């Protein structure tokens, strides 16, 4: 087999492994540092979109945040002894939903206020659970 073909096969295997790894991550719902970094980046994107009055991106990001915070709720429920974590994640879902509804009503001021409140919820949760 030519060397280029071998390389192609190896790359294909690597790509498949990467996809499977990604699926496994999603399926296991691992709430780890990488996951939380994704949450933060999605939140920053949503906040920016609100500021720029980009309804499409703000809505898509806020919907994604709803899903992510549901995983965070599950994580704290499974972990146990984390009432504050559950409470703050549920609050974060509600605030993400508020962003969706206020953006749909073209009320970007209220969406910005919800986003600021979401930032506070994040910091409060970090103060308790984030390990430096």
């Amino acid at each position, binding site marked *: 087999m030519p060397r280029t073909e071998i390389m192609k096969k190896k790359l294909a295997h690597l790509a498949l492994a990467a996809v499977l790894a990604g699926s496994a991550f999603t399926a296991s719902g691992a709430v780890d540092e990488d996951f939380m970094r994704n949450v*933060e980046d999605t939140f920053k994107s949503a906040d*920016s979109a609100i500021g720029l009055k980009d309804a499409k991106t703000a809505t898509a990001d806020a919907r994604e945040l709803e899903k992510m915070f549901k995983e965070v709720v599950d994580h704290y429920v499974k972990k146990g002894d984390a009432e504050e974590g559950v409470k703050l994640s549920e609050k974060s879902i509600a605030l993400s939903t508020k962003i969706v509804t206020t953006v749909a009503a073209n009320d970007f001021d209220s969406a910005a206020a919800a986003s600021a409140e979401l*930032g506070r919820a994040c*910091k409060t949760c970090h103060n308790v659970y984030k*390990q430096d």
Partner: protein
Amino acid sequence: MTNDQNARRRFLVNAGYGIGAYAFSGLLPGGGFISSVQAAEFLDPLAPKQPHHAPQAKAVIWLHMAGAPSTLDLFDYKPDLVKLHGQPLPDSFSKNLKTATDGGVGALYATKRTWKQHGQSGAWFSDLVPNLAAHADKICFLKGSKTEGSTHVIASLKLHTSGLVPGRPALGSWIQYGLGTSNPDLPAFVVLANGRSTGGGGRGQVIWSSGFLPAVYQGTAFRQGDSPILHLDRPAGISDTEQKNTLDLLKSLNQRTAARYPADTELEARLRSYDLAYRMQTSAPEAVDLSKETAATKAMYGLDDKSTVEYGTNLLRARRLVEKGVRFVHVISGSPDDSLPDWDAHNNIEKNHATMARLVDKPIAGLLADLEARGLLKDTLVVWTSEFGRTPYGQTGDGRDHNPWGFTSWVAGGGIKAGYTHGATDEIGLRAASGIVDTYDLQATLLYQLGLDHRKLTFQYQGRQEKATTVFGDVVKEIIT
């Protein structure tokens, strides 16, 4: 590009410079400020801009204690730590604590400090800062300060730029961007560092960078000595007229290129820096010339003492710069010689903190007294802070490790409550327990005092609207008068 387009751009650029001259003085023909950030940027990125709301402060003197002092040995008195000295860190305190340092977690460690309350406020000060203690009633302590990251570089980036990796603008850059300059002959953001040691990290150019903001907003580092800016002096044998003619030619050539590449902020910054440098040949040496200061003033800053002269000189310069309209002076404390890694006392904290506290104590006390006597303290924010604090548990037997979880910062002047303490750490000073102030909150509060709303101070970069303190940060209303 057609000649017509060139001509149109040249007209706009020239018009911008013409109006920019008025803008530098803060006024447009007919009176009034330039009201919109965008308009001001178009005309002149450093033109004075309207704040978002009425400010209580005009300037910031940011005292960065590089290397991270143990505030447990300066301001945060913990009798329980003294009682528990030598015992292991109790589990109740270490829950969820991720210690990622070389030395591990040693036994709780109390140094040989003596403590006393001072002023009407009754604030605690250790024997390491006797001069500063005399100003207890000017200070607002933030004893529930916290941050993220246990390494100097990351935590220092967060403290100054609200980011954990390089690339975001420093607070001083955001302030320049938001308010412009109030003295066109000096940089609006000046950095003064002393010491030669690079130990402790987190004190390089990246913490006063303009990041993704246009390069014109970056901090300007002043050197020690009579000539504060490297290569600023006119070369020997060149007359003022010759230099002026050369610079005029250079400006004209650069303006042509700038007109072709209007998005090139580096060139725009260079153009302005040539102009500014020419004016600064006179203004900068004068700003740092201490010859007209009285002997009493110099003594107040510790200029008559070998151990305080370098840092004291920087603080006296900081006062002079603020007096002349510089908005943000970033003063970085460094070890007086190469024997210490700044405040980074992983071992022999007694020697380290005795030297470093002596370096800053009298000069900072002098700065507070001098600012107040001149009526400048009321609208100047003096901020004492560091990338993090140090642990109540020991390291290597006689040192302390990094502590991002709870430490003390303080602010004086600029409409902040004087003689007030906000927040607290737990019984041993390990974690912020109440009144938690993250670096985002500190920055948001300082911006607020300067008339800027941290959520409205924005810059679009790579398609995203970036905010001064990212998506986090709240103004700490409790500490505002």
